[in-house]
């Protein structure tokens, strides 16, 4: 059985979702996205083999997990997923503050869908950031930072983003998936293509960002 968006939405009272044993984070990301879309109080528990239960309290935008995010298991084996309806005034799912859910959504989004588009993203759209993720707390590459600088300033499609940043489209797609899961992207099909001020090759070589990265060993 595959967990789909409407199944999570239609069965908030069920305890176990009949989650199949899956490797990786795609199904988990789909389940989390569905719960976020529900916008009703629900707790979620994921059983991750060798890594203990992962608890998410959406009301408090927090999660609890014994595995640190800097050891995020990209190929984790998921053996179960349970939802627990709750209410606005119910006690928290675990002792707060827990950890900021954004950090988990970031890792989950980057490491799901195999570099293809998340199932909830329609084709033919351009994206822009509504706010930056908290980069002092999330593991990230300099290419991802560069792509966020693009997304923070203009609407781009995933392929345009990849081209502007000089990365593989799958890398751009992973970032778009993550930012979308974190719900900090806005999208439109009406925005025109971005015009970039032409830079000479010398100007590109002289990018301070590039030189500073090199100087700081990043």
């Amino acid at each position: 059985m595959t967990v789909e968006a409407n199944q999570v939405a239609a069965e908030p009272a069920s305890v176990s979702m009949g989650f199949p044993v899956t490797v990786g984070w795609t199904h988990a990301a789909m389940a989390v996205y569905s719960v976020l879309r529900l916008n009703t109080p629900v707790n979620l528990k994921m059983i991750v083999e060798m890594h203990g239960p992962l608890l998410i309290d959406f009301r408090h935008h927090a999660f609890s997990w014994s595995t640190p995010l800097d050891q995020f298991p990209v190929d984790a084996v998921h053996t179960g997923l349970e939802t627990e309806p709750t209410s606005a005034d119910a006690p928290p799912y675990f002792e707060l503050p827990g950890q900021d859910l954004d950090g988990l959504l970031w890792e989950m989004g980057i490491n799901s869908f195999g570099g293809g588009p998340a199932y909830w993203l329609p084709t033919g759209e351009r994206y822009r950031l509504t706010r930056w993720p908290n980069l002092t707390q999330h593991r990230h590459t300099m290419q991802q930072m560069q792509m966020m600088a693009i997304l923070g300033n203009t609407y781009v499609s995933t392929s345009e983003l990849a081209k502007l940043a000089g990365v593989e489209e799958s890398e751009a797609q992973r970032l778009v998936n993550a930012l979308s899961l974190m719900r900090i992207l806005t999208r439109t099909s009406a925005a025109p293509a971005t015009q970039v001020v032409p830079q000479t090759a010398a100007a590109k070589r002289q990018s301070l960002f590039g030189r500073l990265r090199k100087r700081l060993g990043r």
Partner: protein
Amino acid sequence: MGAGKTTAIESLSEIEVVRTEANNSERHIADKPTTTVALDYGEIVIGGEEKVRLYGIPGQKRFDFMWSILKKRARGMILLVNNDAPDPIAEMLTFLDDFRELYDRGGVVIGVSRADVAAGPTLAEFSEALERANPDMVIPVFTVDPRERDQMENILLALVVNIEMRAALGMTMANAL
């Protein structure tokens, strides 16, 4: 005041920071014995004679004569906001307004310090306030511990890449850094 400007520059600078601190007469705002009165100065050498020069300037209005000097010459600004201050969002918006020309010419990044110890606004609340005040601006907002070099480097790099990208997209008054 009390956001960690001097510490932030110490974390980034490769030279011994030139510090100009004096007794703090506003301990009701930030309970620390000294505060920056003119500026702190540090630098990162990129290669040869080229340097990133880092200036920490005081936040109190009575030192705004320093602001006008630096905002004319700087290429970007990291605005450190003390999340433990009485109204950190209002403070952030006021400073952004004061330094708007620096945003228009280059770029700005917000660093929220003491976010781990103070029950102040969340990052989302800072971002929402920014969007309400300036709907077309998406300014990066990060939590930061100014003592952590890695975090300060991230903020500095985010500032630089944002300045360069805005120039490349023709969104600033200067198209090259």
